[in-house]
């Protein structure tokens, strides 16, 4: 059963991913990508990464792809016509893509932990909770959750982000701000040109 769910979501992810590449209509591509991201988010959740999975949907499917769709509609981009098909590019893409896929598959196969299953790599929440209760006394809610056998994913994520990667987080904030300013500058029409 669980395997079935994995294959289902993998199929959704890859199938809609293929649609992105193949679809002539950009809107189809964008929606397919959104669906692909939803499948990917499910895969994330199957890996106990609830927060990342939710963020994947919230940011990618909910905001980024809407932006794409927005731009596609605003610029009124039509589907590509057959006449312009570039055979060389398509052949190159197929060759490159398949070789890369095969290569990655081979590399994954030689990874020393490639046969590890989820059961073998089981989480030991209670032990982790006990340890955390002993070491970090100021984080009672996390250790309580862990001892109860629940994975407080978001809290642990927050702990990692703010405790270990606080500086990086601020750099990200700066980056976002720079991005915002950049977008505003880029999309501002030059008044003289507009006239």
């Amino acid at each position, binding site marked *: 059963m669980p395997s079935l769910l994995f294959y289902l979501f993998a199929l959704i992810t890859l199938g809609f991913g293929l649609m992105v590449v193949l679809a002539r209509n950009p809107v189809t591509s964008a929606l397919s990508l959104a669906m692909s991201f939803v499948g990917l988010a499910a895969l994330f959740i199957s890996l106990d990464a609830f927060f990342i999975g939710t963020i994947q949907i919230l940011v*990618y499917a909910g905001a980024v792809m809407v932006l*794409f769709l927005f731009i596609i509609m605003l610029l009124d981009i039509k589907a590509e016509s057959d006449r312009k098909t570039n055979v060389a590019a398509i052949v190159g893409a197929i060759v490159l893509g398949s070789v890369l896929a095969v290569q990655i598959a081979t590399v994954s196969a030689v990874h020393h932990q490639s046969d590890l299953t989820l059961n073998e790599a089981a989480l030991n929440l209670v032990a982790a909770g006990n340890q955390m209760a002993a070491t970090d006394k100021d984080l009672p809610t996390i250790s309580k959750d862990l001892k109860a056998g629940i994975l407080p994913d978001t809290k642990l994520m927050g702990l990692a982000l703010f405790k270990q990667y606080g500086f990086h987080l601020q750099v990200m904030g700066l980056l976002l701000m720079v991005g915002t300013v950049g977008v505003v500058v880029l999309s501002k029409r030059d008044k003289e040109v507009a006239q």
Partner: protein
Amino acid sequence: MITLSHYLIVSGILFALGLAGVVARRNIIIIYMCLEMMLSAANLTLVAFSRFHVLAGLPDYSAQALVFFTITVAAAEVAVGLAIIVALYRSKQSVEVESVTKLQG
């Protein structure tokens, strides 16, 4: 049972699809989407490694923090990239890569 390599292979195929899309498609917006796909494929690898690398009974959250950062960067990148595409469209009335060959030697 599902092993680590299952996830890695899914991620690899998704990445290859993205790369193929970037090479094959002419529409810059779709190229952009394929780039996002490649980024997400990398994210999947990271999350998989995070889960399979059990650290004191918990997943390795450093990898997930990295994913978080990737998503943030991707969001910023998309915003700026789309603004550039809009600017490009304004000047060229097209989003096909063939119309942007100014760098041609």
